């Protein structure tokens, strides 16, 4: 099975969110994904890394976040690993926007957004590592035509 893998390690600081977005954007574009799919992937990876920085590492700026892009025949996968506190998705309840506004709170929407943006999201914890996989299925419109095929 053809499978390409590209990796990036960043410290757990929000200043590197832009770096991660650019990394995912570059590979998603090279893979021929639609602009809409690229925007969704950028936002999902940003939200996932932000949650790791704030919750898994509780704001510590010097812990590792390993991001990998996996290209598979039918899907584009962004795998993110951290060594912080594990996130239990079964205990997550998507907050209501009105309630957050009444409480003057701005947070808590990242996980909900990731689920809305991606076709599939998986979480697992193994030993010291937590892993989230953001998965976007490839559709025929995501496959760029080679230049010779354009009219």
């Amino acid at each position, binding site marked *: 099975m053809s499978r390409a893998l590209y990796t990036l390690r960043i410290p757990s600081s929000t200043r590197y969110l832009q770096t991660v977005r650019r990394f995912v954007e570059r590979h998603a574009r090279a893979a021929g994904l639609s602009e809409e799919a690229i925007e969704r992937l950028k936002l999902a990876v940003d*939200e996932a890394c932000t949650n790791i920085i704030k919750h898994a590492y509780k704001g510590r700026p010097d812990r590792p976040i390993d991001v990998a892009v996996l290209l598979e025949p039918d899907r584009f996968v962004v795998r993110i690993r951290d060594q912080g506190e594990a996130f239990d998705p079964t205990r997550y309840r998507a907050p209501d*926007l009105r309630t957050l506004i009444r409480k*003057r709170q701005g947070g808590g929407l990242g996980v909900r957004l990731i689920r809305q943006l991606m076709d599939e999201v998986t979480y697992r914890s193994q030993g010291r590592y937590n892993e989230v996989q953001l998965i976007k299925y490839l559709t025929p419109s995501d496959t760029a035509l080679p230049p010779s095929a354009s009219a």
Partner: protein
Amino acid sequence: MSNFSVGFRQHDGVQILDLHGELDAHTAPELEAALQKCLQHGHYNILINGRDLEYISSAGLGVFMAYIEEIREKGGDLKIAELKPGVYNVFDLLGFPLLFDILPSEAEALERFARGERPTLPSS
């Protein structure tokens, strides 16, 4: 170096904030500081112009959520205008258009301020 900045303008008693660049968890504190500055100066009619806003994550949206109640309690509103389609999509995905005035143009937003119109948060 930050890839985000806020410009300040005034028009008929409305404080306009021009957002430039990418708004994420790293740059959201700059937007928060800009909104706090408005409130400290007693400006409660605030218009966010997103013409040059290239990107927003939930951290950026969170700033609007955290301040809108206070702004409306003071009799003002925070309206948002001229978002690029990709940025608008993020507001839309989270249901913002039901709770915030989001207008295609700055002129329309200014008209609504002039008429004193603003959405009310439905009680549930």
